[in-house]
């Protein structure tokens, strides 16, 4: 290192920003970041392969366990895929209930991301307060689905549990409280001078770059790209619910934070519409769907972090032939070195938190069998 003009600093793998394992090797020149390379492979569990060995029914639970925070979107995406292969009709009440759970999850995930952002800025009170106000949403999820985090709610063909008028009242009451608190946090994030100074013009991403490198989710929307699967390719009940796609033009960390805040309000509106227009009827098939005819399907949903894609191949029978998962964080993190151009080393956690990375979603491993030797490679090592 002595003859090099750069100093190499490892950031991670013990929680670089969010509490998940990801390693960034950063080359710095003084305070300025010259080069940054993400390394993954600390959290690989082989879920895609496990899905092939388990039945369609068990894979619903496996899909939910890809990631704790995004479990409902994963199960929704998987179920939509299975329904597409098997041409299974979903009752309209079940579609509305899916929307309800998806939006509840969006609110609590965005609130977590915002809270972590507050913590990284050095604003621990904001973190504590936001985590406190996130708790009623988790309680709602518990009362609707049965668990605070692992909902296991969506199944191929419908949902697992119905809600009654008592729970609808509870949802409405909680949403009022959360909306009031979020108005306050919106004011904090917009007006607090420390937050605006730390976040604005940091980690800038231009609109052409978003299209070129395929950034998705709030990151793309904060750079002015109007992309949202809920709007482009409606699933669940999103085709029947009016909502706005939030975009901002700035393209910096601050814009990404504000997009998340506005999306929470949008999610609250969607939830209100959903519970007011909840149709009557069945919520799913009485007998779980075990066998699906041969065929293949791609399904995509808008996860909290962007577009999530499942590709499912069935050769008939009760097990899928292949399940391919493409998560939003994968795209966003692999291309993240673009955001760190000319940034300060001190800005690294803030930029990373503004991406809202979900590492457990994005771990991939390739097993290569050549001349009797078995070699494993992470996707990042293949990309280099």
């Amino acid at each position, binding site marked *: 290192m002595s003859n090099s003009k750069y100093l190499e600093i490892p950031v991670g793998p013990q929680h670089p920003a969010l509490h998940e394992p990801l390693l960034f090797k950063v080359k710095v020149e003084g305070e300025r970041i010259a080069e940054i390379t993400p390394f993954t492979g600390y959290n690989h569990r082989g879920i895609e392969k496990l899905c092939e060995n388990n039945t369609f029914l068990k894979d619903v*639970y496996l899909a939910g366990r890809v990631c704790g925070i995004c479990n409902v979107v994963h199960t929704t995406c998987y179920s939509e895929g299975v329904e597409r292969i098997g041409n299974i009709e979903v009752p309209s009440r079940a579609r509305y209930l899916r929307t309800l759970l998806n939006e509840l999850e969006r609110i609590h995930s965005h609130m977590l991301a915002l809270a972590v952002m507050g913590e990284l800025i050095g604003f621990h009170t904001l973190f504590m307060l936001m985590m406190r106000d996130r708790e009623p949403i988790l309680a709602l999820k518990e009362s609707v689905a049965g668990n605070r985090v692992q909902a296991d709610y969506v199944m191929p063909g419908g949902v697992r549990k119905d809600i009654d008028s008592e729970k609808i009242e509870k949802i409405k009451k909680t949403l009022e409280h959360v909306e009031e608190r979020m108005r306050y946090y919106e004011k904090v994030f917009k007006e607090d001078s420390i937050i605006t100074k730390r976040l604005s013009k940091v980690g800038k991403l231009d609109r052409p770059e978003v299209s070129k490198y395929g950034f998705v989710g709030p990151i793309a929307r904060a750079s002015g790209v109007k992309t949202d699967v809920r709007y482009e390719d409606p699933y669940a009940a999103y085709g029947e619910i009016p909502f706005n796609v939030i975009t901002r033009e700035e393209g910096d960390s601050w814009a990404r934070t504000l997009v998340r805040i506005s999306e929470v309000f949008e999610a609250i509106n969607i939830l209100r519409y959903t519970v007011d227009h909840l149709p009557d009827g069945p919520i799913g098939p009485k007998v779980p769907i075990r066998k699906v005819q041969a065929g293949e399907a791609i399904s995509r949903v808008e996860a909290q972090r962007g577009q999530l894609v499942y590709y499912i191949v069935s050769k008939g029978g009760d097990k899928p032939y292949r399940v391919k998962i493409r998560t939003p964080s994968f795209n966003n993190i692999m291309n993240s070195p673009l955001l760190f151009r000319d940034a300060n080393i001190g800005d690294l956690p803030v930029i990373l938190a503004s991406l809202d990375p979900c590492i457990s979603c994005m771990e991939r491993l390739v097993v290569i069998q050549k001349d009797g030797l078995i070699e494993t490679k992470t996707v990042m090592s293949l990309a280099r």
Partner: protein
Amino acid sequence: MLKLFTEIMKNLFKRPATYEFPREDRLAQSDYRGMQILDLEKCTSCKLCAIDCPAYAIEMKANPANNKLYPVTDFGKCVFCYQCVRVCPVKAYVTSNIYKLASFEKEALIKDVLKATSSES
């Protein structure tokens, strides 16, 4: 300044948002998916719960009294998805919101209905 003062006064008398867990219990809601208990009289030994369990936590054992098979759940493996509850054709599983299942021994997590009833009586 006044705003700050009122905020301080409010917080002095407010209940904290956290629980002192072992002493103060977090009341799990009635809808919470907690430990499921088998009603042995209803069970028809159809094995559906053991077949469909995504965590492979249910093992079928023979009842020494009448040689009928009945499921034994290992709560160390259980992921509380309630697939067994959902799939049971005779609704032999009784649901509960019991969540305090931590134990020092692995064997204590394997809940055998027969052993539980014999030790209680």
